[in-house]
């Protein structure tokens, strides 16, 4: 038998366990005559499931754009890769711009990775359509001229759910206990929540910062029980919300739970009977708008399952980008920025059209709340969630749920 020391075995073992944190780049080829777009989204880790939906939405848009004759008569080719983590995301973004010569970057869900790609876009003076990351800081103090933001930011999510909470008398003089994802997105969401509680006389009696790799919430649930709040509020992200919902149902705590962030793929995974409370969403496949229904039908036929909100948002983002390139007849960064900055109205498959605000590059659009249906009323495993009415109401300007110029420190 070969002789080796326990120490060697342990050291190498630990090194390997650690190495799993790194990703491996894939090799992508491109042809010069096509219009290439660089696409980065997390395909692994706690946001991986959302990234997989995002990729499906992107591929569907790519296919439709090409079938309709491409962009300015040229075929579109999307180079898509796993963004892995903020450092890898930045390296890949730089490589796509520098070596692969893509004129535009699109994608991301992770706020921390989005931030590093934004810096790359800024340095290279190239356009980055930041699709799915929701941290306020990205379109606030970290905003830059070369980045546009499609998804609803944290403030909008808080205001959307907040409207429902105010309606149900669940804020004034109530004690809140929050669980917050311990990275830029969570911190930012907590700040938005604090502003909302402060403005509406809610009391925050406890907050726990949760590392993104936590899979067991039982110690935190015990702390919640010890604090005896009136409402428990989740500021978590990705599939951690699913775990929280499942374990919250498991411990059967008597306090109502709400949350300021939950993606529908993660809600579906919670399972019937576990989900409770009111949550915000940017879009849901049961939305009663003809254009949205036709998108859902095509997507479901192609992929055998309905689209999640990240599939929808990638789809509309690529359509907006194609429209911008076709109408400006250019892939030039300045021309595209000017096109978006003139607050062009886009059909995003909702009742009202959306536009990018010129001063912070945020897409202003309708948002919704959703809640679980009463048990036994769901038609299928994707139907146990009921979508609430659009926020803001039809007679209010879309701007009211967004942060104001006074609240948002962005200067481009």
């Amino acid at each position, binding site marked *: 038998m070969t002789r080796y020391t326990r120490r060697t075995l342990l050291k190498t*073992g630990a090194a*390997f366990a650690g190495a799993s944190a790194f990703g491996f780049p894939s090799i992508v080829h491109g042809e010069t005559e096509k219009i290439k777009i660089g696409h980065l989204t997390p395909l692994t880790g706690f946001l991986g499931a959302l990234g997989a939906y995002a990729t499906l939405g992107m591929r569907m848009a790519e296919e439709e754009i090409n079938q309709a004759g491409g962009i300015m008569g040229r075929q579109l080719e999307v180079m898509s890769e796993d963004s892995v983590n903020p450092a890898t995301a930045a390296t890949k973004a730089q490589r796509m711009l520098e070596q692969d010569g893509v004129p535009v970057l699109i994608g991301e869900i992770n706020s921390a990775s989005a931030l590093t790609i934004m810096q790359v876009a800024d340095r290279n003076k190239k356009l980055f359509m930041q699709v799915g990351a929701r941290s306020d800081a990205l379109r606030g103090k970290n905003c830059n001229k070369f980045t546009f933001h499609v998804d609803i930011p944290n403030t909008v999510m808080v205001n959307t759910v907040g409207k429902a909470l105010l309606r149900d008398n669940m804020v004034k003089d109530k004690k809140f206990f929050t669980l917050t994802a311990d990275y830029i997105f969570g911190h930012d969401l907590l700040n938005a929540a604090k502003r909302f509680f402060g403005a509406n006389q809610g009391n925050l009696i406890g907050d726990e910062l949760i590392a993104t790799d936590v899979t067991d919430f039982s*110690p935190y649930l015990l702390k919640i029980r*010890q604090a005896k709040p009136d409402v428990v509020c989740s500021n978590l992200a990705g599939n951690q919300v699913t775990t929280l919902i499942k374990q919250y149902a498991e411990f059967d705590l008597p306090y109502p739970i709400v949350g300021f962030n939950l993606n529908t793929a993660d809600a579906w995974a919670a399972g019937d009977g576990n989900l409770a409370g009111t949550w915000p969403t940017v879009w849901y496949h049961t939305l009663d708008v003809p254009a949205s229904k036709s998108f859902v039908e095509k997507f479901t036929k192609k992929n055998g399952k309905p689209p999640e909100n990240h599939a929808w948002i990638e789809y509309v983002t690529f359509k907006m980008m194609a429209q911008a390139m076709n109408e400006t007849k250019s892939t030039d960064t300045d021309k595209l920025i000017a096109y978006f900055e003139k607050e062009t109205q886009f059909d995003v498959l909702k009742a009202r059209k959306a536009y990018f605000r010129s001063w912070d590059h945020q897409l202003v659009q309708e948002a919704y709340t959703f809640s679980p249906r009463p048990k036994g009323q769901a038609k299928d495993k994707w139907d146990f969630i009921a979508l609430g009415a659009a926020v803001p109401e039809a007679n209010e300007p879309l701007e009211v749920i967004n942060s104001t110029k006074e609240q948002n420190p962005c200067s481009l």
Partner: protein
Amino acid sequence: MQFGFLLEQVVNGLVLGGYYLLIALGLSLIFSVGGVVNLAHGAFYALGAYASVEITKYLGFGPAVVISPLAVAMLGILFERYILRRFYTADPILSLLVTFGLAMIAEQAIRIIWGAAPLSASIPPTFRGSIILGDFLFSRYRVMLLAVVAVVLLGVWLLLHKTSFGRVVRAGIQRPDMVAALGIRLQPYMTAIVMLGVGMAAMGGAFFAPITIVHPAMGAEIITVAFVVVVIGGLGSFWGVVIAALLVGVVRGITIHFVPAAGEASIYVLMFLVLLVRPRGLLGERIEKFE
């Protein structure tokens, strides 16, 4: 009251430790007998979870948590026979490489078969809700889980210490050459140990599916903690792993009670301290082939 809160965290930590135990004990056994750090152990945990979610759809939760570990244990035979067996006497770097690669293949295979989105799984209605004893709150499901772990633990202990099978395995850990000299082939025993180990990991996955997220990377998430438990407990020691698993659960709970932000780091600090004082782990035996 503060003491009551702390005690609640300690008890909860013990329950959590019981769950780590299911994964770590198998890892430790395979490590002790074969000298192989099975980095693919988490993959069997994930497969156990996925299989149980699928079986639950057709047969219900009860049969699922029995069939899924058995099915994965069968897979363990192939794993041992065609992969692990070649590496018992080889440089450990090779077995690390091959099991690490296998873990990545398994994760991607799960992604291809079941998709990247997490599967939905729920606690069966009988075990929903909590039990309140005095000041303590327990999840009914976790109490059941703890009972299952206790039974499995007793079974494995009896198997290793009260049967002729166990005598050969324990002898094989210490002196494989002597076992061979007595005319006993260790290979069938090793196959059985790998079956037992990966079966327990799969059982952990099956039982944990309803309260965690069933997603492709779940195996990679658990392997690090299991590895920490094995290192703290020490090689070749049954009780070392048991104590380490419970200790890891309790230390994490107490840390979260006082310094929540350090919760996840606490178990690594614990490992560091234990290795500093006792490089062999808490109850690690001196195993000649590793010295």
